[in-house]
């Protein structure tokens, strides 16, 4: 099966459907964000009215010049006055337009900031399960690429819509008293224009939405491919990756071209209709014209020119509204992708009665703990065991046996579905999340360091901790000597712009990070396999030192870890198969003994790594 098959199926399953209700509710939601900036909105409305009035003055006064200056009767003394009005109106228009554009831009930036902050805050509270299922690249692009589409729309939309409305109203208000019949003729095409603009919206919106959705998936496809390039190469799936990509891209291109076709049919239609309407105005004016070259005829011609020029001027707001609709379609798809994440449920939250609880001893009890990522498919089933303060428990189990899930339940990275977890007798759900997590040192499966210095990384959990404590933690993690050997010591930056660290060094820094603040409890997902003997020895030393006198749950990767553990817990299909000391389990002649004899004794065969990794 092709790698891109699910993506292709997804792209093909997107039907061009009508999405008005959704689009409308998304728009209402976007409007809500405007409520925080009432003064900006008010200023934009007022400025838009002024701008439309000033915009309409130049054609009006040009016609006045034709009627009253050129005449007959000719009256050149009026010319300078009219010209002055035209220039002043123009300058006024320019200034109003400038302030309006600026205010609009500022408002758009504030709103985008608000949406992005809300998005960011919502992400902070999502559980590990959420991050297991969504890619970082995808989440980032929603906050950048997708929000940029929203930004583009927000920068002009209100001004554009108001401009079209006010300009039309003001122009009608000026021309209606001059000639109701000609007003009717010149505006005859307006309903048609309105109709076609709506058609454009109805037909293209679902297509653009689909394009955006496909593009979002394609982007994460590319990201996965690039991040997982090594795996792709190992399994020789290169051709498959590319072929699948091209197939999905084809669907995208075809949708884009169909949408483009509709846009190109409807977009230029409005201005064309309006211009065609001018012909009718000419014919009517020609028929009703008075004696040629008379004062009446000149007046009629002056106003005819006014009507026609207004009609030509109206094509701009109409074109702008069409474009704004296009921007909204793109913005809507982007906004939808952002809101989808904001609205995604957060599964781990503070309980109403949560409080700060101090972990004094570090006794841990699990009682009939049941947990699964998907409902009715438990990963852990009725797990019960107790860890006494200061004990180190090594957890063994095959891939998928639920080892990582089990230890991640303790700091509530996931919430259990049934049963109870207690620390020092207090249910962990009675802790405030921050209070619970700050008192448990965690070494996660994937080794992640932030850009920043060694010191910042080690002190990550307690930024205001003293240097002594940082050094102490680093010493326990067996990384102090290495850091000291660096030119800038603890102030050496990590990552892209700093030193390149080996996997083992990185892991020891993450151990040091877990030890800062001297937590009573420690959970470690020690997954670093495929390291050389020296590194392994260093990491082992770090782990041994770190776990001294702390309640520790550690996913065992090495025999040495198991050797120094107080007890061993063997997980099988989400249940505790065996739990006890090495001697007890050996005496039981069960799963542990088998693993021990076949693998540990023969010293670290690949199968052990399979058994230890997850």
């Amino acid at each position, binding site marked *: 099966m092709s790698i891109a098959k699910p993506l292709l199926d997804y792209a093909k399953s997107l039907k061009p459907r009508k999405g008005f209700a959704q689009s409308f509710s998304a728009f209402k939601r976007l409007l809500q964000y405007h409520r925080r900036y009432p003064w900006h909105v008010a200023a934009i409305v007022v400025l838009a009215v002024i701008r439309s009035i000033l915009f309409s003055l130049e054609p009006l006064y*040009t016609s006045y010049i*034709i009627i009253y200056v*050129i005449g007959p009767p000719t009256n*050149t003394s009026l*010319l300078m006055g009219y010209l002055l009005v035209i220039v002043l109106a*123009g300058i006024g*228009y*320019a*200034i109003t*337009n*400038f302030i309006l554009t600026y205010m609009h831009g500022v408002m758009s*930036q504030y709103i*985008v*900031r608000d949406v992005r*902050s809300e998005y*960011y805050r919502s*992400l*902070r509270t999502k559980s*590990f399960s959420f991050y297991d299922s969504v890619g*970082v690249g995808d989440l*980032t*692009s929603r906050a*950048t*690429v997708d929000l940029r589409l929203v930004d583009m729309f927000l920068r002009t939309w209100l001004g554009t819509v108001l401009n079209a409305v006010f300009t039309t109203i003001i122009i009608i208000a000026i021309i209606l008293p001059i000639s109701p019949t000609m007003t009717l003729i010149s505006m005859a095409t307006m309903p048609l224009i309105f109709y076609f603009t709506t058609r454009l919206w109805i037909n293209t919106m679902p297509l653009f939405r689909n394009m955006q959705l496909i593009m979002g998936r*394609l982007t994460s496809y*590319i990201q996965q*491919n*690039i*991040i997982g*390039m090594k795996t792709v*190469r190992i399994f020789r799936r290169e*051709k498959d990756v*590319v072929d699948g*990509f091209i197939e999905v*891209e*084809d669907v995208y*291109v075809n949708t884009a*071209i169909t949408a*483009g076709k509709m846009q190109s049919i409807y*977009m*230029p239609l409005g201005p064309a209709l309006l211009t*065609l309407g001018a*012909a009718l105005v000419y*014919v009517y*004016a*020609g028929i009703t*014209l008075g004696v*040629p070259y008379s004062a009446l*005829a000149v007046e009629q*011609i002056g106003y*005819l020119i006014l009507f026609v020029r207004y009609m030509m001027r109206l094509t701009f707001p109409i074109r702008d509204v069409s474009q704004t609709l296009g921007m909204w379609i793109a913005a809507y798809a982007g906004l939808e992708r952002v809101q989808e994440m904001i609205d995604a449920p957060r599964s781990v939250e503070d309980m109403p009665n949560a409080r700060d609880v101090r972990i004094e001893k570090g006794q841990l009890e699990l009682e009939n703990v049941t947990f699964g990522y998907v409902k009715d498919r438990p990963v852990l089933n009725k797990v019960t065991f107790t860890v006494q303060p200061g004990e180190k428990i090594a957890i063994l189990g095959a891939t998928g046996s639920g080892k990582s899930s089990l230890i991640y339940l303790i700091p509530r*990275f996931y919430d259990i579905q049934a049963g109870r977890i207690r620390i020092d007798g207090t249910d962990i759900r009675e802790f405030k999340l921050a*209070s619970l*997590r*700050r008192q448990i040192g965690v070494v*996660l499966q*994937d080794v992640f360091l932030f850009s920043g210095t060694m010191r910042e990384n080690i002190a990550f*959990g307690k930024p205001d901790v003293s240097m002594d404590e940082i050094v102490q933690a680093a010493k326990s993690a067996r990384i102090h000597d290495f850091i000291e050997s660096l030119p800038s010591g603890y102030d050496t930056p990590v*990552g892209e712009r700093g030193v390149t660290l080996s996997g083992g060094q990185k892991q020891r820094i993450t151990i040091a*990070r877990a030890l800062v603040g001297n937590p009573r409890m420690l959970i470690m997902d020690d997954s670093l396999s495929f390291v050389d003997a020296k590194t392994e020895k260093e990491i082992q030393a770090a782990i041994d030192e770190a776990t001294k006198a702390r309640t520790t749950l550690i996913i065992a990767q090495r025999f040495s870890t198991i050797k120094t553990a107080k007890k061993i817990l063997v997980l099988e299909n989400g249940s505790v198969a065996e739990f006890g000391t090495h001697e007890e389990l050996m005496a039981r002649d069960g799963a542990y003994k088998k693993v021990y004899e076949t693998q540990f004794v023969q010293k670290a065969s690949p199968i052990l790594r399979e058994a230890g990794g997850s």
Partner: protein
Amino acid sequence: MLIRRVYEYAQANKRNLQIGVAATIAGAFTGLAAPYMHAIAIDSIITPKNLSGFIWWIPLFAAIILGNYLFQYIQTYQIRIVGEKVVAKMRDDMMEKLQVISLRYFSEGEAGRIISRPTNDANTVRIFIRVGLTSILVDISSILGTFAIMFYLDLRLSLLAISVLPVAIVLVWYLGKYSRAAYRRTLITTSGLTARLQEDLAGIKVTQAYAQEKETEKKFLKSQEENVKATIRAILIGSSYTPFVMALRLTGTMIILFFGVNALLASLPTITLGILVAFIEYQFSYFMPLVDLVTMYDQYQSAMSAIERMFDVIDTKVEVVDAPRERSIQLQ
């Protein structure tokens, strides 16, 4: 040259491109014919009340408008096809190349930069071909066409109409320099914000494990605020174009009106009421494209650098054996 290489990609859709460009130019010219048709209607049909003229004027006018509509339709559609296909092809080539180039390009820190090429960069180019390329073609043909018509109609009024042009060009260019600097600053803060987000999200499990959400949020908000400030500044400079340009345009209109009206009253043979009005409209129709062209410069530049980055991937040499880390080439 970059454009040449992009053009090579368009070879598969050569016909679409040719039709599209031809339609764009034809569309711009038919658009320009409208004010001239108005002048004819006023001068030769309405003013002398010679209504039989409508017999040929109405069909011609309608033909021009319909032709204009048709050309715009063809232009938008064909250019869209070319844009989508070219970018898709470039992206396919990039993906193919990515599968065979040395794995060291995918090391930590580099991956983010590589990812943005087939995604963000490709999107920039797509939008540029769709909007920018068409605008540039339309603007240039509009400006040249307007000049041709104006000079054909009346030499003196034309010279008056373009008298403000040098001032406008200097001013717009000068402001453009500031605008480009501000724009670049926005781009820098945007990539800073993106990098920040990427790191925050990549490390979110660690952040949550240590309950440091508030601390990281502070850093994020700071980085976002920088971006907001830079963008607002760019908007301020960008929108300051219009008052100057509008003022200049109206100065032009005023000059045309002043001299035009006086010429009309002195009964100069070439200047009629219709032509005077047409000039005011033409003044409008060459000024706007001009401003458009200058603002397009930024888009053009960012599209060019995006294209460059995409070719960078496409042109990467394939090595069979990984070179040692120290010798790894830095991609930007």
